[in-house]
């Protein structure tokens, strides 16, 4: 059995982090077009009682 987890191939290049962050923010920015009105946040879900 190989109990060794994958070895890191070295530290990430800062540009790669910045590019990934830009991509993530671009995806999430779709929410800016959504009219949320006075909708409250739903932090987690309670099956018995709905949002909490």
């Amino acid at each position, binding site marked *: 059995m190989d109990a060794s987890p994958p070895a890191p191939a070295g530290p990430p290049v800062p540009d790669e982090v910045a590019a990934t962050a830009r991509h993530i923010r671009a*995806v999430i920015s779709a*929410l800016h077009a959504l009219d949320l009105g006075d909708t409250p946040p739903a932090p987690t879900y309670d*099956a018995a009682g709905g949002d909490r």
Partner: protein
Amino acid sequence: MKPCELTLADASEAIAAGELSPLELTASVLERADAVDGHLNAYATLAADAALHAAARAQEDIAAGRYRGPLHGIPVALKDLVDAAGLPTTASSRVRAHHMAATDATVTARLREAGAIVLGKTHTHEFAYGLITPQTRNAWAPDRVAGGSSGGSAVAVASGGATFALGTDTGGSIRVPAALNGVVGLKPTYDLVPRHGVVPLSWSLDHVGPITRTVRDAQPVLAALTDCQQGPGALQTTTAGLTGIRVGVPRTYYFDHVTPEVEAAVRTALTHLRELGADLVDVDIPMTEYIHAVHWGLMVPEATAYHEPTLRSSSHLYGPDVRVLLEAGREVPAGDYLRAQRARTLMRASWGRLFDEVDAIAAPTVPTTATRAGQDRIEWPDGTTETVSDAYVRLSVPANITGMPSLSFPVGLDTAGLPIGMQLIGPPSAEATLLRMGRAYEDARGVLPLPAVHAS
């Protein structure tokens, strides 16, 4: 048929009838795991001696008349995010290479209480932050990905190296590897199964659930995980037909950018559900343009928040893909996180209205079968491309955002001989309905055989 090739239900019946002992079953499963794991690499830790010892105890208890129920003497593999006392929980990461669990996770304790035999810990994509599990190979084709993040658990079950397993699911991580390896995965309703003692990826999206050979097998595991106190019949699914069950067939989203073979297999499975008595109803999936944004808006900052201390102290120990994601997550504004939470409120309400019209929604689990290891992107006929991970997560995520249960089970093979999965999504706490539907399909169409796994 070797004991390791039995389904949980068949093994359980054989044990209850005195035709098979827990020790014979556990030894057979360990032998299979040992034979195939050299090239499949499903296991991070295999605790063979402890498992055999527990099996011997189970055998003594059953012989003495202390039979605990359908999981007594049944071997289980735990995803390596789930604590088991005396074993490391590495999350398949060097960050936790020296970890040792002092106590059982709640789910581990419940399985042991039900008499299950813990075999060991299965590989995950590092910290469950990925859909590939690159260190593990697909049980049907070793040159293909296992899927993830519960890749080790699905491969262990599909190869006969575990009779059942536990996985976790934040964006499809139970259902995706289950579909890619031809086994059954159930993501229960949010919070139905306790997460205490399970390493989180994203608190508000994480679920723990079973991976089994058959739908029939999933029912007793879910009953044990939920500590079902109402007796063995409480989660019992009827095998009656599906007359009166309304199955929603998405007109939007779930059949977009899906391979023709996957779509054909799922639509054929839908006709089988109709033959069993179900009514098929066309439905439109709400808010599809925001699904990706809500998922990332919730998961990315929550994952980074959990890892903040170890990112500061030992970031060099993370694999490069996971480290980049975690560091990039620091750049998500709090306002966007709240926006995703508010959008989740709307999404849950709109999905709730959907279930006024239907009892369940049927859809492909993943848009394509297992891709070749090392393949980064999928190109669709209209010229668009997406990463393999984005493709695998795309159809699973709505059930994580809404907290609704989803059951994935095999509905055939493609022309390359790779498994195709279909999922049934229901309203909160509809697990019994989903299991009833999946069981009816399985009883009518049969169980996918185990793949021809070769000893290494």
